[in-house]
């Protein structure tokens, strides 16, 4: 992505008028894309991880940590070196441990204080590749750091603890209340200046008719006032019409209030993208990974602080959804439907609402009975040859208006620019590249402080997908339960204290011997509805959907239930590994990764969220009033740097996260 504007972005009133046209174009392009790509077969497994960093600048004299807005300069400097590398003259790593690896890629993100890094080339399933992930992540961090000012560092906290406070938490400093965000906490300059981002933020605000509204419950410590009224909210601003929001009750008691996209899109996550063998496999993975989203969210929890306050939730997820929630009062159900077409229960960035796989195990009871779809679009897609499941999925996505429309796009539209904000996305191969197959993205995980953890979780997800495909695992539960699990995952210490809906038996019913019946399920299913009805007469009747799943702890799900009902994701992965040829060295590495996850799940090791909470609680200047002061923030950032470097070795900081014992 270039930093110069590549087009003229329309403001919302204009964009709104064009929304219908863009949607129609989008549908046609989608159909063309799908027709071309649906038969794409036999792509290798390729996968990639994306690590996002906050760039912090430390002022050791004043003991202050600030966010650095140097994204553009850093990227420019990185790009120069990348060009040198490509030309073969740069200082690459041909003699070091990264010999033969392509130099990493760096990308801009929404926040101007953020940086994203991906491996130079995608990973394969070869076990040797799995060994490279962690060292490559460390390399990326080194390369990034080398292109920053001496006092700047890339850190992998999900959010900056004091983003949006009254002090000068950014460098260089800009005052809040700009025309695009109109936030009373963050300036417009916080966002990447590419026209796409301010336009996106402004159009969301404009479409909503007010600013986005994020209220995160405050963590009530012994000295926290009750009721807690966010002391940083200014009720006397009269610069923009949206300054009325707080006077109309936008900031809720006992909550930390935030009013800009930066509070959600400015958080860092660990995202994994897979290329599937073909569309069928992509759709299967999309479905089977969906119930794992909330589990991995709770397990990677790392977000206990917002805007200088300890909050009562552990993860960032709802803030992302809230930060891009463009729904109008009518769509939200706050006003009777007059101008808008429907009530919409979720933000455009939320957990999955549909299942996609043409899988005989997908029962109609798993679908959301209240799914909002555009029937005309569904019909158009089905008339165009698309199957009902996929048509329903897109007819659901397309209930949203496109937010950023470039006037140039009205001649030719890139679909990916318009509908990029789903949870676990499935992406058809892009039309311009023939060597890319169907891709599935897993987006729920929070970034972890160390690259060891980030590698562990990335590789765990990769191994789970291999186990899913090898054992033909079935994690289906009604999709509303996954939505509920997503909420559950937010609770403080949900990883140990909460229970999640999960399927009890992940194994498929034994198919009859091939000789007994030509096809176990018949071949006539065309959609979820008909497949559920078309069960062959010889199969025993299905048990009620409610009996297929139950509430389990994260440890049950990861390590297996003591009573043997659910075998556990780790034992499944181990079982997969026992079925393939793994060399000794790789197996040792993998064992240490799986061990981390096993112990996170059973509480032996702490989550990042818990570690940060404890750090604040034990800080000598903490007054048990939920306030994370500048001094604590500085010390926390320093501590995080130390954990990243020393990884809790020899009783150093963070051993509770990584080792479980001091020595």
């Amino acid at each position: 992505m270039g930093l110069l504007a590549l087009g003229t972005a329309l403001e919302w009133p204009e964009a709104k008028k064009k929304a219908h046209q863009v949607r129609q174009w989008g549908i046609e392009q989608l159909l063309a894309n799908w027709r071309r790509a649906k038969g794409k077969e036999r792509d290798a497994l390729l996968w990639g991880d994306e690590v996002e960093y906050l760039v912090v600048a430390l002022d050791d004299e004043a003991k202050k940590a600030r966010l650095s807005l140097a994204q553009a300069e850093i990227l420019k400097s990185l790009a120069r070196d990348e060009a040198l590398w490509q030309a073969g003259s740069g200082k690459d790593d041909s003699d070091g441990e990264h010999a033969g690896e392509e130099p990493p890629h760096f990308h801009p993100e929404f926040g101007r204080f953020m940086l994203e890094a991906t491996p130079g080339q995608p990973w394969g399933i070869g076990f040797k590749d799995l060994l490279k992930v962690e060292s490559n992540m460390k390399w990326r961090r080194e390369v990034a750091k080398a292109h920053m000012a001496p006092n700047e560092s890339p850190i992998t906290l999900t959010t900056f603890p004091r983003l949006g406070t009254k002090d000068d938490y950014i460098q260089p400093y800009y005052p809040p209340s700009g025309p695009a965000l109109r936030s009373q906490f963050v300036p417009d300059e916080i966002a990447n200046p590419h026209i796409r981002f301010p336009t996106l933020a402004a159009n969301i605000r404009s479409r909503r008719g007010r600013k986005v509204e994020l209220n995160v419950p405050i963590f009530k410590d012994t000295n926290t006032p009750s009721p807690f009224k966010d002391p940083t909210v200014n009720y006397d601003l009269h610069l923009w019409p949206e300054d009325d929001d707080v006077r109309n009750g936008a900031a809720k008691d006992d909550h930390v209030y935030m009013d800009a996209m930066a509070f959600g899109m400015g958080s860092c996550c660990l995202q994994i993208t897979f290329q599937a063998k073909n569309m069928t496999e992509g759709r299967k993975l999309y479905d089977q990974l969906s119930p794992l989203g909330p589990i991995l969210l709770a397990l990677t929890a790392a977000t206990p602080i917002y805007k200088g306050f300890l909050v009562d939730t552990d993860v960032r997820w709802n803030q992302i959804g809230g930060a891009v929630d463009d729904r109008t009062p009518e769509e939200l159900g706050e006003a009777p439907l007059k101008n808008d077409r429907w009530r919409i229960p979720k933000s455009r960035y939320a957990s999955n609402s549909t299942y996609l796989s043409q899988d005989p195990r997908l029962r109609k009871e798993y679908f959301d009975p209240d799914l909002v779809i555009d029937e005309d679009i569904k019909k158009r897609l089905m008339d165009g040859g698309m199957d009902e499941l996929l048509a329903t999925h897109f007819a659901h996505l397309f209930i949203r208006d496109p937010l950023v429309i470039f006037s140039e796009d009205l001649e030719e539209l890139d679909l990916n620019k318009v509908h990029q904000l789903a949870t676990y996305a499935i992406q058809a191969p892009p039309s311009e590249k023939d060597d890319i197959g169907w891709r599935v993205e897993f987006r729920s995980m929070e970034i972890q402080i160390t690259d060891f953890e980030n590698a562990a979780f990335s590789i765990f997800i990769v191994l789970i997908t291999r186990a899913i495909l090898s054992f033909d695992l079935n994690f289906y539960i009604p999709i509303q339960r996954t939505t509920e699990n997503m909420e559950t995952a937010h609770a403080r210490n949900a990883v140990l204290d909460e229970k999640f809906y999960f399927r009890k038996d992940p194994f498929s019913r034994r198919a009859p011997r091939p000789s007994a019946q030509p096809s176990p399920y018949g071949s006539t299913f065309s959609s979820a509805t008909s497949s559920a009805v078309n069960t062959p007469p010889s199969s025993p009747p299905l048990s009620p959907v409610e009996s297929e799943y139950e509430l389990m702890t994260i440890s049950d799900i990861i390590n297996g239930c003591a009573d043997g009902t659910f075998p556990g994701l780790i034992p499944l992965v181990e079982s997969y590994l026992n079925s393939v040829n793994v060399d000794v060295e790789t197996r040792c590495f993998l064992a240490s990764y799986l061990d981390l996850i096993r112990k996170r799940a059973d509480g032996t090791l702490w989550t990042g969220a818990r570690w940060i909470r404890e750090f604040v609680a034990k800080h000598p200047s903490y007054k048990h009033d939920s306030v994370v002061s500048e001094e604590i923030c500085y010390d926390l950032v320093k501590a995080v740097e130390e954990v990243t470097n020393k990884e809790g070795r020899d009783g150093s900081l963070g051993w509770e996260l990584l080792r479980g014992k001091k020595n």
Partner: protein
Amino acid sequence: MKLILSTSNIMQGGRPPVIRQPTQKSNVELINALHSNFLASQHIELSNGTEVHVNGNGVSNNGTAKGYQSWTGEQDGALYIPEIDFSQPGLAEERSQYDITVKLFYLPGIPVSRRCAHTREAIDLVLKELHVDSIDLLIVSFPGLLFDADDDSDEEDAGATGESDDFDSMVQTWRVLESLHEQGMIGQLGVAEFGSERLARFLPHTKVKPSVDQINLKDCCVVPKSLILYAKQEQIQLLTHNDCNDILPVGTTRELLGPADKGVGILASAPDADDGIQGHIEPQWVVKYTAVVKDRGVVENKGYFALADVGSCVKPQK
């Protein structure tokens, strides 16, 4: 009489032979997989219209001494348990997409002289099942060898079976494998549980060097340095496994096939009882095969065959 026991593809089909505890070994996997494959085959036959007698305990054992014939099959003097329809396609894609690894377990107490025939027999079955004409890697497991990570002395575990393999018989067996390798039937050869000393002793006697040494590691981060260095020097890949040393004991086999609650009513409850096939039973070998789609890391097909002799000419093992 030969009995050929099979699991069919244990990756698909929804039984839980998947190991529940990481510490469990594949002996449990094999036994469970055989058991549930037998039950499932029995079940399908029964539900396909055969007269069924069902009592309170599920399928009645009455008359199953004859009943098993409906779901097993006799071919060339061998009883297939269950019957296998080899006309069914083995793998979904063409051969070049797969890495096929086979591990052959020679069982304790079986004369080395039979190994040539056993190896052919086992490999042939796998080739027939998967509809391929070669395998990529054959790992052989000699009985009684135990790798001990703590000290690198891989002394034979003579106490356990009294039938440990001597060195010469391993070399002798290796000749058979080398000839199959020459015929192009096997891509690479491998051994299991060899420590560095045994490897060093073994290599000079081989024409085709083992390219893999598979070791069982409880805690895999304590591999003896000497072995790592030696393997590297000789370009032998060290792979991990968690198979059991005594993978198919006699007693377990009788339990699986016998008439009692756990069995499927093929063998008599004792060698001279009249509630099934009579005589002693002697498992001869077990073979495990795995077909992995190379560039996707998906295990598409994994299963076991086991061969046991049964009848009046089989002598009980001491």
